[in-house]
């Protein structure tokens, strides 16, 4: 167990997101999407969006594979922005993401947490005709 002065990383709310993620899957009508990975550890996250003409996120889904931190963070950010607007996404900083996650992370694990944040920031600029994901390896997202 972690030392007394250390915060438990695998808190229930994080494991809840990991085990029962919010909107893991695919949009019914996807207008924007982006996928990226942390090449060092192999975490993969894809985020799909349905953005309407007013800039509202009508649907937000994620798919991915990776550690508890990256996948729970993806679930959290998708839950947070479902029904919100791209303007709100744009003003949501990396620090906001770490705050949303809630547990203090070491620099290496911050990269896991910030992967879905990076993907969402790119997804709002990535219409599906050219979604920026790697078309060569569609099988990479396995769950």
């Amino acid at each position, binding site marked *: 167990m972690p030392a007394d002065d250390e915060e438990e990383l*695998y808190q229930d709310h994080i494991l809840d997101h990991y085990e029962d993620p919010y909107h893991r899957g695919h949009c019914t009508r996807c207008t924007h999407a982006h996928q990226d990975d942390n090449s060092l*550890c192999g975490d993969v996250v894809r985020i799909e969006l349905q953005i309407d003409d007013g800039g509202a996120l009508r649907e937000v889904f994620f798919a991915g594979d*990776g550690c*508890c*931190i990256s996948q729970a963070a993806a679930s959290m950010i998708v839950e947070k922005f479902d029904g919100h607007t791209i303007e709100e996404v744009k003003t949501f900083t990396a620090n906001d993401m770490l705050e949303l996650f809630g547990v203090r992370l070491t620099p290496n694990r911050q990269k*896991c947490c910030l992967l879905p944040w990076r993907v969402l920031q790119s997804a709002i600029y990535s219409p599906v005709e050219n979604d920026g994901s790697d078309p060569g390896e569609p099988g990479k997202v396995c769950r």
Partner: protein
Amino acid sequence: MSALLQTSPLDPLAYRSDFPILSREVRPGVPLIYFDNAASTQHPREVIQSIVSCYEEHYANVHRGIHQLAQESDELFDQARETVRAFLNAPEREQCIFTYGATSGINIVARSWGDANLKPGDEILLTEMEHHANLVPWQQLAERSGAVLRHIPLTEDGLLCLDALDTLLTERTKLVGFTAISNVLGTINPVAEIIRRGHQAGALVLVDGAQSVPHQKTDVQAMDVDFLVFSGHKMLGPSGVGVLYGKRALLEAMPPFLGGGSMIRRVLLDSFEPGDLPAKFEAGTPPIVSAIGLGAAIDYLNRIGMDAIAHHERLLVTRAHEILENIEGLRILGPAPRHKAGIVSFTLDQIHAHDVAEVLDRSGIAIRAGHHCAMPLHKRYNVGATARASFYLYNTLDEVEQLAPALDAAKRVFHRKRK
């Protein structure tokens, strides 16, 4: 466990006190269990002291000065090269080029020998278990030269499919490059047989010794290997230094790769004449102090004995397999311990390797998690990432026993009772 393996020929407790870092606690009350040796090893006091005393008493640049310090540094640097030569049983010390690590050694061969010799349609034969360091330089060479890459496939249990050599080795094969020991699977490859068959086909053979030279006896003449590379930091030495061994005729025929100071005989404004071995491949100021530290590391290893180290690690990995095989949901990548060095990589249920490593760290156990710079290998076995424990002479059976409760803790975190 077989009777043969029940006792170790070395007592790790006798050596642990030589390694200052092994007595530290990771956190208050949590001793360090260092199982990340395939990534990099720790340093005995005498290696650290060799570095300190070089800086405090002898340091100057090598091969240039005539003052007293320059002579002393020269002597220490040359002695380190001689120590490397003897350790490898190389015929001459000039055949032992100091590099910046195994990676830079492979790049020298690919750039120098490869660019000078390969034509479109020539083939380079590698394996599916290579570290990226023994893949990417050849991919770059293939792109420059038009040569074609082939790969020896792997069996389901992590051995090289040697039957495939019948068709993979042809007169087009110009070089066979493979690792003596897989940094993920731990597999000890049949080095002598592959070298013999490569030579029969008329190819040169490069062995990546990054995981073998630190852990077992190496004799480049008995192996009849053309090129061998390894790194100092995986064998108790400092980072930033490695060795490229090559057969003399090959090294002499090869053009220099990096150009600069040291590697020349004379320089005009528009041309140069390359220097002799080993300087020809050691452009610029070499990693002087790191090389001296590597020499001290080899002296330390020699006193213990490479055979004893290999035997001890076999004992540890055999016990690790016994423990891990009893854990439900745990899958070991790689062959049975009798084919292995002291490396065990695994997956645990659906728990990501990083999360396994995170929970093990709470017990002070340092392991590596990820693809270990071998993405094609992980793809071959259809896993994204593995957790890897790797051992060295200072690890004990008691430490290996700690894997069981630590992995149980990981399962408890991720298989919590639902409220």
